[in-house]
């Protein structure tokens, strides 16, 4: 290949990488086209979360277009793999795409922090369905996302108590052992779980540990659990480690109840852990079926798959942006003002209204229990 052609190709492909999603909608004659964005992991190890969320956004758009024939909505999705390093390279592309009015996402807290500067500079309204880290809406923190960041998911300070309650349900005078995987997600969550335990009558905290997320040999932690006489073990961390741990715990002969937070909430968990996972309890944010069975059936019909994690939240988030478009908020500034002042109903029946830091007042954490190798929704933890 000619060198000149080669280098010009390189420039073009680099541009395509940066602006690949930036194909500006061509003005169509009939319906007016508007664009919203989605940012989350669509490839890599976390892809299943992003694909579930994106499906819920697409579903919301389908319903909206059916109801409002005058509007056509274009969805621009960018894949940050849930990784802050990747997010920092893809967020500028969507931020500079002038047609995007608002973004559902970013899905993950770390990726959100890395993307925020690019969105802040263009006043892009963000509504995350799943970034739960507390610091994102804490004005005293450097991670603070205001005034552009919003979320329709409960923070970890709501999840912690829910997890404490769900883990100890049905265990009288529960002796609880809590340990984390040392990640930025797990350490604060462990704190909120321990605080939540104080409000559960009869439960006592008997011990804890902090285990690097690369650990595969959990024997020292298991030794501590046995010495503490714990009847409930709560892990704040991710599903792959949880699967390794629960196998070793069961092999050691312990019958303590095992529970984990939304990091463990993944159908891969029972698959990896096999029989050892039976009866394990996990809090997480589930599919549409948890709030509306009829809607779930319609979702399956229209999308061809069942709704997955954070679909209620993603659906709600997309609907807020779509309501803004319907109300004629067709610049980013107007859209941001609209979202900040928004008040409406979630499909869960709760009222969505953001406080001045971008938080909603409720958190919907459902409890899941492993039965026959599948995490089964047992309803919202109240």
């Amino acid at each position, binding site marked *: 290949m000619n060198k000149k052609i080669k280098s010009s190709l390189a420039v073009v492909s680099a541009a395509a990488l940066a602006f690949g999603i930036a194909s500006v909608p061509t003005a169509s004659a009939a319906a007016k086209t508007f664009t919203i964005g989605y940012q989350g992991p669509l490839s890599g190890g976390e892809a299943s979360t992003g694909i579930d969320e994106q499906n819920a956004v697409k579903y919301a758009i389908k319903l909206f277009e059916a109801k409002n024939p005058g509007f056509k909505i274009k969805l621009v999705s960018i894949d940050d793999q849930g990784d802050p390093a990747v997010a920092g390279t893809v967020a500028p592309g969507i931020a500079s795409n002038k047609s995007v009015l608002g973004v559902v996402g970013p899905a993950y807290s770390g990726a959100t922090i890395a993307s925020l500067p690019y969105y802040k500079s263009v006043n892009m309204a963000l509504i995350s369905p799943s970034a739960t880290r507390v610091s994102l809406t804490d004005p005293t923190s450097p991670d603070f996302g205001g005034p552009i960041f919003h979320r329709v998911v409960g923070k970890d300070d709501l999840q912690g108590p829910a997890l404490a309650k769900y883990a100890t349900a049905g265990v009288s005078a529960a002796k609880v052992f809590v340990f984390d995987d040392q990640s930025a997600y797990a350490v604060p969550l462990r704190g909120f779980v321990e605080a939540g335990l104080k409000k559960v009558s009869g439960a006592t905290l008997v011990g804890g540990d902090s285990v*690097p997320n690369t650990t595969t040999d959990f024997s*020292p932690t298991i030794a501590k659990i*046995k010495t503490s006489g714990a009847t409930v073990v709560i892990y704040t961390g991710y599903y*792959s480690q949880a699967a390794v741990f629960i*196998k070793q715990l069961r092999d050691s002969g312990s019958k303590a109840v095992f529970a984990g937070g939304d990091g463990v909430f993944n159908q*891969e968990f029972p698959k990896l852990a096999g029989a050892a996972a039976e009866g394990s309890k996990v809090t997480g944010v589930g599919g549409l079926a948890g709030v509306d069975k009829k809607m779930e059936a319609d979702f399956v019909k229209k999308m061809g798959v069942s709704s997955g994690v954070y679909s209620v939240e993603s659906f709600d988030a997309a609907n807020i942006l779509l309501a803004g478009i319907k109300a004629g908020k067709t610049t980013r500034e107007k859209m941001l003002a609209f979202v900040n002042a928004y008040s409406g109903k979630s499909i869960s029946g709760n009222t969505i209204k953001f406080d001045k830091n971008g938080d909603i007042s409720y958190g919907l954490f459902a409890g899941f229990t492993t039965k026959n190798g599948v995490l089964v929704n047992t309803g919202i933890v109240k």
Partner: protein
Amino acid sequence: MFSVLIDQFWSLTIAGIALGFIYVLISLGYTMVYGVLRMINFANSEIFMWGTFGTVITSRDIFHYTQTSEPAKGAKLVLVLVSSLVMSMLVAGLTAIFVEFVAYRRLRMKGTNRLATLISAIGISIALQEIMRLLTHSRPVGAPRILEKIILTEIWGANIRLDTVITIIAAALIFFVLERFIKLSRMGKAIRAVSMNEDAAKLMGVNLNRVITTTFLVGGLATGAAGFFYITVFEYTKFNIGFTMGMAAFTAAVLGGIGNIRGAFFGGLSLGLLEVYASAVLGTQWKAVTVFIVLVLVLLFKPNGLFGEAVQTTRA
């Protein structure tokens, strides 16, 4: 603080020894190559990771065991375990030879300096990890349970489990065989000769290339065996597990005195025990800190590690 250690001392000790033997076998991969080439084989951690997949593929794809199938019994159990072990050793051994060809041999032939091979070894280790990441879609891979983890007996309150017993005995056996091979066989003598003096060995008619390839192969076989035991005990692998295990095994090799086979043995065992005791007493977050404090102290008083006489003298 010490109540856990006192209460669970024997359970911890047995777990530490089993983990230690896995370290011993991986650190052989580092020590063998270092002994001969005076270079660290940075790709050994990924050779280990590939080795773990050898076992997974054998049990899952060749013998069609799944996460939900019953553990094997009797002759079938022995067959599956032995073929998994052989497969892991083979995969890791071949990967090690591949690493030697790609990252070491060509550069050595061109007479480049040592740092060049260091970088090429890091390069191939990244490549090996990324290939596995793409093949597994970045997901963790669970291994089916082949060996039922029966509790054989209870000694001083500790459960003696079948998988740990097998790991300890078989790993010790493999170590012993390799050590004898280096000590007694013709090839082993050639390896030691090259380790002592490369030029003199060449003049005596030792085929240098063959010796170096064999060294990588033997190190790879040991590392692959470690991969098999790792899967048998933990039943889990992922494209990035190599780094942590490789780092630990490398530490073990340095602790015992790198380049020294007996050093790898005692270094691995002491590291395994040290890790579980430190985690139990101080909390798992202090594991790495404790290990490295001990390493620094040992190196302060014995700069060549616990068994750190020159390789040549111990091997002679």
